[in-house]
């Protein structure tokens, strides 16, 4: 990181006042300093207090100047049309997440509208689950986008996180945005309502089957789920999760030291960024048991064409969940194109997942979709590119300059409009 030129400091001081000198070491350019200073002033002007305006601005600039992320300084971050509260200890929602969440809600809305057009009586319930939800930004935005006047029988959204802090914050966020009337309130279960809406945040460790299974099996009738053999046929009729989303920790321990920015490294929770080491060790056995049950002694590097790095452990677990509960669509945020390729490799390398989400036979017969989405998807839906991963051709969507951001799976037989 290059040094900030001293002349910028006195230019900033002359043009923007003393506060600019505080912000410059963090913001690095005058333009960005002017923006942040404006947002801080706006925030102070909007929240009443007995402390004088100038003193509060000064204090917030001081905090920001020490590297604290702006979202923690101001206590919130805009996300779509929502305002998400942020606290130290919970990951700040990113714009990339916002971008694909909006795209995803558009897909869900369009396919619901087109399916209800073809058959008005056939209104499906919509069940969405978000694992590693953090501030609850993804479920809240999906709920807000989908809860208004839609052809769903019911809308059921669940967010799951391991951290109590995150669950508390996500519930706060629900009430905060409800208070501001940004979306309709979840409907009361006891009253009969034309459109049943629910939004819950639950604490659970997604690696512990005993904790997460009751949550995951809710939309599926529990007694059928118990019988593994009967599952195959009966799940055809049973309601399932329509969408499984997740923004899990995906940075490798070495990447955390090298590629993260300073304010992320120093202030944001490592729990939300880097998969814990003990988790990796524990899960590696677990993972290979699932993927290669007959060949347990093989080392990761010898496993044929399935590549696997330690930071991918959450994806392995998520795919395992997808194997069992067969959600109609899965979206996982990934760190870069390399990781996206590895995740796609995991899907294709597993027979059952491949059958579920990629399909078999010739091009025309395959009904499923495995896609990689880049940043900058909204407004650039037209961009498409074919990438070879293993022996298969995978569609990559989004503006070609964007980083690989997420992996999208759609089950065979499910149609996106």
């Amino acid at each position, binding site marked *: 990181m290059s040094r900030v030129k001293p002349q910028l400091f006195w230019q900033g001081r002359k043009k923007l006042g003393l506060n600019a000198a505080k912000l410059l070491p963090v913001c690095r350019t*005058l333009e960005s300093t002017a923006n942040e200073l404006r947002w801080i002033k706006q925030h102070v002007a909007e929240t009443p207090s007995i402390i004088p305006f100038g003193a509060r601005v000064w204090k917030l600039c001081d905090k920001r100047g020490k590297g604290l992320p702006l979202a923690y300084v101001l206590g919130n971050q805009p996300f779509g049309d929502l305002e998400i509260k942020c606290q130290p200890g919970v990951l700040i929602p*990113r714009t990339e997440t916002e971008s694909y969440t909006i795209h995803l809600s558009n897909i869900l809305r369009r396919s619901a509208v087109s399916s209800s057009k073809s058959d008005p009586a056939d209104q499906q319930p919509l069940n969405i689950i978000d694992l590693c939800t953090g501030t609850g930004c993804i479920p809240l935005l999906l709920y807000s986008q989908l809860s208004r006047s839609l052809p769903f029988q019911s809308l059921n959204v669940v967010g799951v996180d391991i951290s109590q802090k995150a669950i508390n914050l996500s519930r706060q966020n629900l009430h905060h945005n409800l208070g501001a009337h940004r979306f309709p309130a979840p409907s009361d279960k006891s009253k009969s309502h034309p459109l049943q809406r629910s939004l819950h945040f639950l604490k659970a460790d997604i690696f512990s089957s005993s904790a997460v299974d009751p949550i995951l099996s809710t939309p599926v009738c529990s007694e059928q789920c118990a019988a593994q053999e009967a599952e195959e046929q009966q799940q055809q009729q049973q309601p399932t999760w329509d969408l499984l989303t997740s923004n899990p*920790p995906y940075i490798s321990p070495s990447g955390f030291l090298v*590629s993260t*920015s300073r304010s*992320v490294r120093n202030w944001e929770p490592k729990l939300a960024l880097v998969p814990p080491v003990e988790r990796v060790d524990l899960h590696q056995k677990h993972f290979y048991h699932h993927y290669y049950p007959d060949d347990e002694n093989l080392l990761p590097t010898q496993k044929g064409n399935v590549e696997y790095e330690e930071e991918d452990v959450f994806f392995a677990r998520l795919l395992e969940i997808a194997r069992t509960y067969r959600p109609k669509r899965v979206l996982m945020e990934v760190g870069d194109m390399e990781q996206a390729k590895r995740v796609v490799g995991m899907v294709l390398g597993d027979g059952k997942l491949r059958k579920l989400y990629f399909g078999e036979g010739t091009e025309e017969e395959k009904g499923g979709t495995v896609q990689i989405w880049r940043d900058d998807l909204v*407004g650039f839906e037209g961009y498409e590119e074919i990438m070879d991963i293993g022996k298969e051709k995978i569609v990559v969507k989004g*503006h070609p300059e964007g*980083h690989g*951001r997420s992996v999208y799976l759609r089950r065979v037989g499910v149609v996106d409009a």
Partner: protein
Amino acid sequence: MLAAPWVCRSCARSLRRSGVFVSLQLRKASTANPTLAGLPPVLIDRARKLAAEHQQLTKQLESDYEPTAAKRAGEISKVVAALQELDKTKAALDELNGLLESDDAELRQLANDDLDATKKHLETLGMNLSATLTPKHPFADMPCLIELHPGPGGTEGRHFADTLFRMYQKYCENKGYTARVLSYQEAEDRTPGLDGEVPISEAVLEVTDPGAFAAFRGEAGMHRVQRIPATEKQGRTHTSAVAVWVLPSFPENSTDAENDFNNPESDFYVDPTEVKSEKMRASGAGGQHVNKTESAIRLTHIPTGIQVSMQDSRSQSQNRERAWRLLRSRIASLRREQREAQAKDLRDSVLSQAQMSRGDKIRTYNYQQDRCTDHRSGLDVHNLPNVLQGGEILDKVINSVQSWLTAMDIRNLIAQEEAQARAAEGGSDKKKKGGK
């Protein structure tokens, strides 16, 4: 009444003799001031043609119904009604004129009394007819974006841009329009101006009411200010300018297929593959690795080179949405202008000065003389504070521009008809010659 405070006698005499004085005295407040006393024959011709067409259409519709013909008949029925009314009044006027020549003194008196009223009525009817004949602006029913860009010339123009911005905001408030600030960018140096003005580098106001474009389209152009700036130490008057662009905006919830931005036929359609999006791409991987606050979006439309940047909001998606909206509006208005320029080629060259482009100075706000002058309608009003507060005086100015625009549209239409008629005549002449 000399422009200079004092001129010595000999100079004054020489000035008077040379005639320079007279030309100096003439101040041209307006560049064009059309009057519409009598109706030009072309317009009447056109109305007659339309009436004939209407008659034919109704006859055709009686025998068998056809939706396109019915639509056309509905469109021109207004013109036909206005024409009929006009004919009736004209007949009445003729009768009155005949009565004036009668021998009965009492009758003559009566006819004289009626004559003025009938003449006036005829005039309004003429206006009415021409108004029904003028084509409606295709974006007239749309909401609009008002963009303010200070002209070159330092802080003074930027200060005045802020004043204009507030003027339009208050005007919208007074008129009951809903206005939303889309972008408000303060300039880097922030010397305060008169009455707490903040220098701005660009501002965009969105008026979301349908029909706002028609109400504000006369505001587009250079607005000139003459005053002593707050930064001026020696009391000299400065002249600076602010460019105001009025763009049609795409309504948020619209089912109008013609103006749907997903419809490639529409003016608002922008092919996403032709747009380059530049935003701060942080080095490294993005996502969880960084928590950048940079939310600026810059869109460039490659074929036209139109560039839009937005950085007001902390939310990138909001900035992106606003940037796309602005880009669509600019492109739509550019396409419209291009089409108008093509139509202009058909018209008489005399009228070219009436074509309003962004570069023309349209209005002057003079603080020293407490005066606001519109150079198109030629209206001169005082009580500048009321104008800048968006009060009824500004309303008066805007209305005068509206009627000027209508008059201009009619003149353009007539010119176009004439040009077409001439072209047709020329064509038939040639044919005749060819036949011989």
